[in-house]
Each structure stands twice: as C-alpha cells, then as structure tokens.
C-alpha cells in the first residue's frame, strides 16, 4: 500500500501530476478561452503543490519552495487579470470567446 504517512512525497507528487495532466487536458481540448484559463490555474496549482512538498521534505530551511509558491500565486493573479481583460476585449469585438473560431488574425 502506498500509505501517505509512509511515502508522503510520492503520494503528493502523483496527486499533483494527475492534476497537472487534467490541466493540460483542459487547455488542449476546451474551446472557451475562460475554460482554458482555468486549465492554466490547475497547472499552476499542481506546480505549487510540488514546490511546497519539496520545500517541506528536501529543503533544510523549509522556506525556498514556499517563497517560489508565493511568487507563483502572485503571478497567477497578474496573469489571470490580464488574460481575462483580453478575453473580455475579444468578446466585445467578436461576440464570442471560442478560441478556434477566432481566426481573423491568422492572415
């Protein structure tokens, strides 16, 4: 059995890689731009979990991973605010937010 208290790092890494894969799947398959952004949030969260896990079990001071995780959270906030503003702009101009239909910049 893969008990958490016996193999904490492995358990957490498997969990975070599963969430990472769900995030990638969301990004690849969704048509809606807001949904894609949610996929990105999933990926960022799984990465954060990895950082904190390693910070807890590998780093002696137990702080660097936490610092990186904080910066990731701040960057996620920044990224989400700008991305959603762009999506809103697209919606105002084209009336839709499906990424596969927005091909007017292609040529």
């Amino acid at each position, binding site marked *: 059995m893969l008990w958490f208290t016996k193999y904490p790092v492995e358990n957490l890494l498997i969990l975070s890689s599963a969430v990472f894969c769900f995030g990638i799947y969301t990004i690849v398959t969704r048509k809606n731009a807001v949904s894609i952004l949610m996929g990105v949030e*999933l990926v960022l969260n799984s990465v954060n979990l990895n950082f904190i896990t390693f910070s807890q*079990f590998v780093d002696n001071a*137990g702080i660097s991973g936490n610092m990186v995780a904080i910066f990731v959270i701040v960057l996620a906030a920044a990224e989400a605010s700008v991305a959603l503003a762009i999506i809103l702009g697209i919606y105002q101009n084209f009336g839709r937010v499906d990424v596969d239909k927005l091909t007017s910049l292609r040529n």
Partner: protein
Amino acid sequence: MSLNEILLNIIFYALALTGLFSSFMVATSTNMVRTAFSLLGVLFSFAGLYGLLRADFLFAAQILVYVGGILVLIIFAIMLTHKIANVNLSNESTSSSTVIAVVCILFAVLVFIALTLPEYIKINQRNKPLTEMIGNNLLSDSLLPFEILSVLLLACLIGAVYLARKEVKE
C-alpha cells in the same frame, strides 16, 4: 500504525480525492459555471494540503488570493461573456483519443519519475513560524524579485484596466 497516522492518512486521501474529482470535473464538465465551481473544490483541497504540509501562510494566501480573488474574477468574466440567465451554459470541448493517449502517457512518465526519486529526508523542523521567516526572506534574500513584483502588479493594473475600459467606450 498509530491513531494519529490513520487520521492523517484519512484526511490526506479525502483531500486528494476531492482535488482529483474536482479537477476531473473542471476538465470534463459541460456546464461553464459548474466548471468554475469545480475549480473552487480544487483550490480548497489544495489549500487543505498546504495546511497538511505545515505551510500555513500559503494556506491563507491560497484561499485569500485564489478563492477570494482570482475565482471571483473568473466568475465575473463568465457572467460578462455569456448569456448568463440560461442555466445550461454550454462549455464545449473537442476531445479525441489522441489527446487522451498523449495525456495518459504524460501522466505515466510523471508517475514513473515520482516513484523512482531517490530516498528523501525526514520532515524538516522549522524553528520559527513560517510567516516570520517569509517576512525576513522578503526583506533580505528575495528583496529584488519582491520589488519587481510591485512593478509587475502596477503594469498589470494599468494594462488590464486599460484593456477592459477601452471596450466600454466603443
């Protein structure tokens, strides 16, 4: 195994299953708003895991910024870009067996890496509360990234507000 360990295991697996199920719903739900509220489940379960890993400041920051901020922003954006009074907001996805296969391979590789990691050290014992250590670190080692963050946030604020406002006037 002692009682404490059993409880820890139960809590971890409960949180992990919540997170997995919610992220599965984020990936596959056909209803836009339900997708967003599934993301809420992921965020809460991850916050719980941070708590389990003794990262208390991250626990609070996750809930405060992600749940109270980013998710609210996402829901507002959904409300602004959809015909919201319609309950069944569709959230289409194009899934093919190729995509699923590639993602499964990716997962297999990641699990393989996770299981073949070298033996790791025990849980480290911090001698100070985490928040205090982070505060000291922000004022010494990571001072430069910290100040750069403020410039980034400034750029974000101005840029995003400009983008959002431009559309109002047209």
